[in-house]
C-alpha cells in the first residue's frame, strides 16, 4: 500500500487514463485533455492517496449496505438479493447539453403519448397505413380490453424513461423507450446519496442539480389527480418477490405514498377500494409497478394471481388515474422504433430532435433489402420484443454471423416477426477498477414525469457502466454497475429538499388508512420477534444450568421439557431450528412492509439472522451455547429498540406492539404455569425469575428466597414489572382501545371487550387464585384475542 501511494504521488491517478481509440469519452476530449467540466473531480481524485480514496468509497458502500439497497436476481430457478453494484465515479454532463437532451425527450414523450392515444383510440395510424396492422394486432402488449377506454384526466402517460447512448460522432441517440412501468428512479436517488457521501467534499459546492425537486413536483402532480384531496396516492407493486421491490418500497416511503399489492384492492360499484384496518377506502390514483397484463385476471391475463378483479371495469368507469395507462407496454415494442421517426412530423409537428437507433421492421420488403445489403451493421431480434436491447435474456443475433442463405431464409419466411437494428457502439466514462481509472462503455437512463406544467425531466438519472472494454451496446448484456449522473451547472444550484411540504404529506398519511395486509404483517412481525427472544432466553437459561450441572441430567433440566414441547423446540441443538424458523418468518413479515419499516431495523434483522445461522452448526452445548445465546439476545434487544423507538406512533405501530405484547403474554403465562406448578422440580422458581428477566426486581421487592407467591406476584400480577403478565395485558388493553372502531364513545368492540375482561380479571386476581389451571386458562383466553383481532382487522 505504501509503495502504491508513493507511485501515485509521482503520477496522478488520471494520468494513466487512456480513452479507447475512435471512441468518444465523457471525461477526456479528443485532444487528450480532461474536459473542463471534469477538472474539479479529476483534481480531487488525483489529490487523494489510495487509502483516502478507499475510505471515501467505503462511505458510499457503507451507506448502501446500511440502507439495505439491493435488487433481486433470478437465475437457476431461485432468486437472491444482491447488493447494489455502484460504480463510484459519477458521470458528469453539462447543464447546457442536458437542456438539449431534455427538450428532445419531451418531444419524444409527446410523440409516444400521441401514438398511445391513437392505438387505444381511433387507430388511424394503422388505418392509413402508417403503422403495419400486424405490429399492433399481433402484439401481446396491445391490450384489447383497453381499446376505447379514455384515461381519466386525458393523458395515458405520466412517467417515462429513455435509455440513451452516445454515438461515435458524439451525438446522443435513443436506444429504447420505457413506458410500461419504468424502474430505476429510486435507485437513482440511492446512487445520488451514496455517491455524494463518497465525494462529500466535492458535491455540496459542485453546482450539481438536485433530484428532490423532480420527485416533489411529480408527487404534487399525482396528488392533484385525486378527486378526494385527503386520499393517498398508492403504488401498486407485484410484491416482495419482484426484482425491484426494494425500489417500490423506497419510493413509497420517500414520497409518502401507500404501497399496495393487487390483493389489497377490490372494485366495488366500479370504484377502486383498498382494504384497510379502518374499513374500505377509495384509491383513485395508482402508480403501477406491475406489468399491465397482470393487473386484472378477469379481463387481462386470467392466470394472474397478483391482480385485482375488476380493475379494467374501474378504469372504464373513469374512477382511477393509472400511471401509466394499462397497455402502455405496446410503446416499448422494438419494431415501433422503425416508424417513430416517420410519425414525428405528423404527430408532434417536427422531426425527432434526437434520433433513435436505426431500426428496420423486416415485414417491409425495402427493410429486408437493407438488411441483406449490409448484414455487418445489423442485429436481428423478435419484432415485438419489449426488452432492452442489451437485456441478457434477449435472443439477439448478429446478422453478420449468419450464412447468407440462412439470413435470407429467415428474412423471407419470418420477415414480419423480425426487427433489425444497427449494431451501435457507446461512449466511455471512467470507472475505478482495482484502484485505477479505466474507460468503460455506458448508457444513460433519463426519467420524465408529467406535471402541471408539462413533462419534467429528472436532472440526473442513472448510468449503466459496462464490465469490459467492448463498447458495442450488445456487450452491455454482460451486466455491470450503475453510476450516478451529475448535471453540472456553471452557477450554484438552489438546494431543494422534500421537506417543504412534509407537514401536508403527514396529514394525508393520517387519512390514508393502513392496508389490512400491512397490519397483519406488522402484528406477526411483533409476534415472531418476541417469540425469537423468548426462545433465546429459555435456551440460555437451559444451557447455563447444563453447564452448572456438569452435563449430568439434573432433575431441573427435565423441568424444561414441558416448555420445550409447548414451543416446539428440540433442545438437542444449542441454536434450535425453531429459532431460525422464527427469524425467517420475522424477515418475511418485515419484507412485506418495507415501506413502513426502518431500514436500520431491516439491516439489524438480517444481521441477527445471519449470526444465528452462522453460530448454529458451531456452538456446543453448555457454556459455549449460553454465551452465543447472550450475544444473540443483545442483538434482538437492539432490534426491539430500533423498531419500537423509531416508528411513528400510528396505527401500524399499534399492531406491531400488540403482536409483541400478545406473544410475551402467551409466553409468560406458559412459563409460570409450568415452572410455578407445585410439582415442578426444585430450582424451577429461580428459573422462572431468570427467564422472566426479573432477578434484580425480585431481589429488590422481596428480600427472602423465591416462593410461589412471590414469583406469581412479580411475574403475573405486578403492573410495574415490564416482564409481568399484567403489564402485557394492560398494554394490550390500552392499544386495542385505540384501534379503529374499538371504542365508540364507550361502546366496545368484541376485541376491546375481551381485552378489558382479561385486564379486570388479572387486576383482581391474587397469587393463590392463579393456580396452574387458571394460568393455562388465561393463556387460552389470550390466544383467543389473536383470533378476534384477525377476523376484525385482517380480512
Amino acid at each position, binding site marked *: 500500500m505504501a509503495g502504491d501511494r508513493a507511485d501515485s504521488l509521482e503520477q496522478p491517478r488520471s494520468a494513466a487514463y487512456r480513452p479507447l481509440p475512435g471512441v468518444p469519452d465523457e471525461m477526456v476530449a479528443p485532444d487528450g485533455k480532461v474536459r473542463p467540466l471534469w477538472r474539479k473531480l479529476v483534481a480531487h481524485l488525483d489529490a487523494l492517496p489510495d487509502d483516502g480514496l478507499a475510505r471515501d468509497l467505503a462511505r458510499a458502500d457503507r451507506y448502501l449496505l446500511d440502507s439495505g439497497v439491493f435488487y433481486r436476481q433470478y437465475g437457476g430457478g431461485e432468486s437472491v438479493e444482491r447488493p447494489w453494484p455502484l460504480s463510484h465515479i459519477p458521470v458528469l454532463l453539462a447543464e447546457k447539453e442536458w437542456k438539449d437532451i431534455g427538450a428532445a425527450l419531451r418531444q419524444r414523450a409527446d410523440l409516444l403519448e400521441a401514438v398511445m392515444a391513437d392505438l387505444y383510440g381511433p*387507430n388511424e395510424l*394503422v*388505418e*392509413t*397505413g402508417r403503422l403495419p*396492422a*400486424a405490429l*399492433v*394486432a*399481433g402484439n401481446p402488449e396491445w391490450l*384489447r*380490453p383497453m*381499446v376505447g377506454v379514455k384515461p381519466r384526466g386525458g393523458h395515458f402517460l405520466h412517467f417515462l424513461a429513455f435509455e440513451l447512448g452516445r454515438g461515435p460522432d458524439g451525438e446522443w441517440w435513443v436506444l429504447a423507450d420505457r413506458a410500461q412501468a419504468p424502474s430505476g428512479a429510486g435507485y437513482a436517488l440511492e446512487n445520488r446519496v451514496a455517491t455524494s457521501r463518497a465525494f462529500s467534499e466535492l458535491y455540496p459546492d459542485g453546482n450539481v442539480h438536485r433530484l428532490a425537486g423532480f420527485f416533489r413536483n411529480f408527487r404534487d402532480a399525482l396528488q392533484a389527480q385525486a378527486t378526494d384531496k385527503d386520499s393517498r396516492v398508492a403504488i401498486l407493486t407485484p410484491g416482495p418477490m419482484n426484482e425491484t421491490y426494494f425500489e417500490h418500497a423506497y419510493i413509497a416511503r420517500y414520497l409518502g405514498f401507500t404501497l399496495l399489492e393487487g390483493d389489497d384492492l*377490490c*372494485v*366495488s*360499484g*366500479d370504484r377502486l377500494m383498498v382494504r384497510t384496518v379502518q374499513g374500505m377506502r377509495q384509491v383513485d390514483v395508482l402508480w403501477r409497478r406491475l406489468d399491465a397484463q397482470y393487473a386484472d385476471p*378477469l*379481463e387481462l*391475463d*386470467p392466470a394472474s394471481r397478483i391482480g385485482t*378483479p*375488476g380493475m379494467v*371495469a374501474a378504469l*372504464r368507469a373513469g374512477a382511477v388515474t393509472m400511471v401509466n395507462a394499462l397497455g402502455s407496454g405496446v410503446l416499448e415494442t422494438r419494431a415501433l422504433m422503425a416508424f417513430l421517426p416517420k410519425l414525428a412530423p405528423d404527430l408532434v409537428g417536427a422531426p425527432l430532435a434526437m434520433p433513435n437507433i436505426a431500426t428496420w421492421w423486416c415485414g417491409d420488403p425495402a427493410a429486408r433489402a437493407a438488411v441483406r445489403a449490409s448484414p455487418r451493421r445489423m442485429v436481428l431480434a423478435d419484432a415485438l420484443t419489449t426488452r432492452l436491447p442489451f437485456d441478457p435474456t434477449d435472443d439477439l443475433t448478429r446478422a453478420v454471423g449468419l450464412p447468407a442463405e440462412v439470413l435470407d431464409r429467415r428474412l423471407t419466411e419470418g420477415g414480419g416477426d423480425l426487427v433489425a437494428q444497427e449494431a451501435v457502439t457507446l461512449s466511455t466514462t471512467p470507472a475505478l477498477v482495482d484502484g485505477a481509472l479505466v474507460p468503460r462503455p455506458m448508457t444513460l437512463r433519463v426519467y420524465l414525469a408529467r406535471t402541471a406544467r408539462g413533462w419534467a425531466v429528472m436532472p440526473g438519472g442513472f448510468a449503466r457502466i459496462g464490465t469490459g472494454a467492448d463498447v458495442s451496446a450488445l456487450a452491455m448484456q454482460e451486466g455491470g454497475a450503475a453510476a450516478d449522473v451529475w448535471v453540472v451547472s456553471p452557477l450554484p444550484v438552489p438546494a431543494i429538499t422534500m421537506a417543504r411540504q412534509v407537514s401536508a404529506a403527514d396529514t394525508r398519511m393520517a387519512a390514508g388508512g393502513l392496508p389490512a395486509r400491512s397490519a397483519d404483517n406488522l402484528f406477526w412481525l411483533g409476534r415472531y420477534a418476541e417469540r425469537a427472544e423468548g426462545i433465546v432466553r429459555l435456551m440460555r437459561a437451559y444451557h447455563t444450568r447444563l453447564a452448572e450441572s456438569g452435563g449430568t441430567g439434573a432433575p431441573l433440566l427435565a423441568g424444561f421439557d414441558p416448555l420445550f414441547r409447548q414451543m416446539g423446540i428440540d433442545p438437542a441443538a444449542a441454536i434450535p431450528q425453531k429459532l431460525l424458523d422464527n427469524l425467517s418468518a420475522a424477515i418475511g413479515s418485515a419484507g412485506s412492509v418495507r415501506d413502513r419499516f426502518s431500514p436500520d431495523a431491516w439491516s439489524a434483522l438480517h444481521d441477527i439472522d445471519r449470526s444465528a445461522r452462522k453460530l448454529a452448526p458451531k456452538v456446543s452445548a453448555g457454556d459455549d451455547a449460553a454465551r452465543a445465546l447472550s450475544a444473540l439476545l443483545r442483538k434482538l434487544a437492539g432490534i426491539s429498540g430500533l423498531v419500537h423507538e423509531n416508528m411513528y406512533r400510528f396505527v401500524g405501530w399499534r399492531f406491531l406492539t400488540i403482536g409483541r405484547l400478545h406473544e410475551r403474554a402467551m409466553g409468560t403465562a406458559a412459563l409460570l404455569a409450568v415452572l410455578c406448578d407445585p410439582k415442578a422440580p426444585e430450582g424451577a422458581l429461580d428459573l422462572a425469575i431468570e427467564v422472566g428477566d426479573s432477578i434484580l426486581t425480585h431481589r429488590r421487592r422481596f428480600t427472602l428466597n423465591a416462593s410461589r407467591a412471590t414469583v406469581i406476584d412479580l411475574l403475573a400480577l405486578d403492573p410495574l414489572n415490564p416482564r409481568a403478565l399484567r403489564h402485557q395485558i394492560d398494554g394490550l388493553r390500552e392499544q386495542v382501545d385505540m384501534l379503529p372502531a374499538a371504542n365508540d364513545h364507550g361502546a366496545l368492540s368484541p376485541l376491546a371487550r375481551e381485552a378489558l375482561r382479561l385486564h379486570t380479571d388479572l387486576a383482581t386476581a391474587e397469587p393463590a387464585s392463579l393456580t396452574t389451571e387458571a394460568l393455562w386458562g388465561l393463556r387460552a383466553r389470550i390466544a383467543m384475542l389473536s383470533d378476534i383481532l384477525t377476523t376484525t382487522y385482517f380480512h
Partner: protein
Amino acid sequence: MLYRLRLSIRYDFARPTGVGRQLLRISPADLPGMQDVHHSSIVITPPPAERSQFTDFFGNEVTQLVMPAGLTQVRIDMTGRVRRLGEESELDLSASLDRLPDDLHEITDLGPHSPHHFLRPSHRIPAVAPIADFARKACGKAATAREAVECLGRAIHGHMRFDAQATEVDTPIAQAFAGRHGVCQDFSQIMISGLRSLGIPAAYVSGFLRTNPPPGKPRLEGADAMHAWVRAWIGAEAGWCEYDPTNDCFVAANHVTIGYGRDYADVAPVTGSMRLAGGQTTSHSVDILAED
C-alpha cells in the same frame, strides 16, 4: 329459422363463497344479415349485488356481476328468441392460399372483425408442430382457402373422436390432439391452430346448436351443451366463413352464435371467481328448439 333458447347454469358450493366478480358471455349476438335477436334475458338467482352490461372488443355482449358473499348456490338462466338467417353458400369466392397474405396486407382496419386479430397464436391456441404438419398434409390438394378450411375440418373430424369425458376445459390442445379425443372446444381450437399455421386467420365461435333435429335428420353432436366452432378468413372478397369440425359441416341455419374471440378464453361463458371456487359442482343444460 326461429329458435327458442334456454340455457341454465347452476353452481353448488361446498363452502359459502366470498364476494365474487363474474363476467358472463352467454347472450345470443345480433348479427346483421345473419342473426336477429328478438328477445334475450338473463336471470341470476339469488340476485347479484351489482350488475351491468358492456360490449367487449370483439363486439360480444358481456354481463358483469358482483355476487354477494356467503352463497352456497348460484343459478344463471338465459332465455331468448332468435331468428337465424344463415344459408350455406356453395359458391367459392375465396382466395388461393398463395394470394391470402397479399389480401391480408391490404386490410388496414383493426375493428372487431379484422382478420389481423386472428392470425397469431393466442394464449390457449399456441403453434403446435404436429397440428401444423397434420394441417399441411390435410390441405395439400386445396386450391383455395375455403377448400383448405373444408379439408382440414373434415380431416380433424376423421382424426378425432367426440368424447365428453376425455378432456377438461383447460386441457392443452396438443394433448387433446395427441389423444385424438375431446369436445367441440378441442376440435375447434385444434382446427384454428392448424388454419393459423397455414396462414389463414381463424377465430373461435361460441354458440348453440339446435336440439331437435330437422325431420329425418340425426341429432347433432354437442347439442345438449354450449357449442363451439371455427370462423376462418378466406380472402378479401369472400371474407369470413364458418365451419363446425365437430359435425363436419359449414355452419348455416342450425347454429346460433353468442360471440367471437381468438380462443375459448375470449368468449368463455363464465369468467371469474365462481368458476375457481373450490369444492363446487356445476350443472349446465341447454335447449334450442326450432319454432318454425
